């Protein structure tokens, strides 16, 4: 059993993007604030703090979820992946980022990190998604700039590339 009282500041350790890191948190600190302000990883954005916009999506033990709906203390001892981890890796995930650029899937880029994290999870579970399924998952995010079209194309193309198909046969503009 672990207890953190309301005035306590405790040390939280977690596996963040493959490295063990730690920082201080109070019991009520949101994971978003912990990542951004305490650990300095500002790639995870905050767009609503009530679980609707998806900007704050990270992977918790591999699974995409809203970090604004989680306390920092809940992340203690868990594995958290953020967009900073994606950018650093050289594996298939770069396919998503490449496709985003090609299809102009971002304008202001504020929603992008969350969307990348959702699909890095989703595409690892579902290699051959239908466009409807992609839209359903994308439906957990709000993008105010792009109108979503480029995003859908980019994700479909990235999925194809990750399956080893040539980028041109799926979803190209």
């Amino acid at each position, binding site marked *: *059993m672990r*207890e953190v009282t*309301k005035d306590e500041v405790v040390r939280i350790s977690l596996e963040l993007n493959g490295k063990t890191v730690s920082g201080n948190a109070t019991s009520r600190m949101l994971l978003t604030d912990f990542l951004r302000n305490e650990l300095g990883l500002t790639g995870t954005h905050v767009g609503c703090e*009530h679980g609707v916009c*998806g900007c704050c999506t990270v992977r918790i033990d591999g699974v*995409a979820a809203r970090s604004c709906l989680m306390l920092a203390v809940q992340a203690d001892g868990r594995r958290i992946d953020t967009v900073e981890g994606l950018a650093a890796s050289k594996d298939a995930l770069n396919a998503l980022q490449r496709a985003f650029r090609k299809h102009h899937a971002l304008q202001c880029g504020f929603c992008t990190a969350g969307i990348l994290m959702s699909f890095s999870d989703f595409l690892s579970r579902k290699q051959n998604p239908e466009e409807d399924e992609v839209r*359903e998952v994308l439906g957990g995010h709000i993008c105010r700039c792009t109108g979503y079209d480029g995003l859908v194309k980019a994700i479909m193309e990235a999925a194809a590339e990750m399956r080893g198909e040539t980028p041109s046969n799926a979803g190209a503009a």
Partner: protein
Amino acid sequence: MKPAPLSYIRPDTAEEAVAGLAEHGADARILAGGQSLMAMLNLRLVEPKALIDISQIDELRSIRIDGNMIEVGAAVTQAEFLAWPQLKEHAPFIAKALPWVGHFQTRNRGTVCGSIAHADPSSELPLSLALLEGEVVLRSKSGTRHLKASEFQTGMLQTARRDDEMITAVRFPADVGTKGAAFREVARRHGDFAIVSVGAVAADQGAVRVAVGGVADRPACIGIEASLTVSDMTDRIERLAWELGGYDDIHASARYRRDLVRRLVPIIIGEVRACAK
């Protein structure tokens, strides 16, 4: 938008969790997936003194078949239940309704029991529990009790759970609706709380059991016998619409809700009968 000060407790066992509830009572809230609770904490609509986080308790993480019931532990997420290999076979209705719960990202953390505990009048899981006549397992220091769905949810966001009790599992009868199940909901956007949701399963002797959510302060069920004429059925649905009443909110009026009941219930009954054939 930040939570008010609170203490955080993460028990390792259900017993410890129940002990925490016994200590804090109404001042504590159980935190499982947090997909409703955390948003309410951030908005400071809810200001508990303590949160008891049960999401890591192993004994609450299983889905199992117990006799003719499917028992889902309190830490099982909606995504895990949806991915349960036997779901389609043993709970075809839930397999249809569950994808409508929130979004991919919220189902990944939101729990089955949490949604039922929250008792939102338009949520899919409380409707499923009511339709399938499932039960809720409540545990406190003084023991365990099982409440039927109809006994558990008493109103909008209100349940018969005592302050010292936690839900350790919900139990759905297995193999209900295997001869026909249908679900449909109307929301302004995909993934929003339903304005009206309607579910139905084929019951004995050609009857259809129908549940309606989002119209009254909790899901309501009626039975439609096979012998009912079309006009009797229409009358019954008309009565249902008025009896549930509906309510006005920013997305829909009570009248629109009643109209949806009038139009969707027959469609859903038709769908169930079509698969029963």
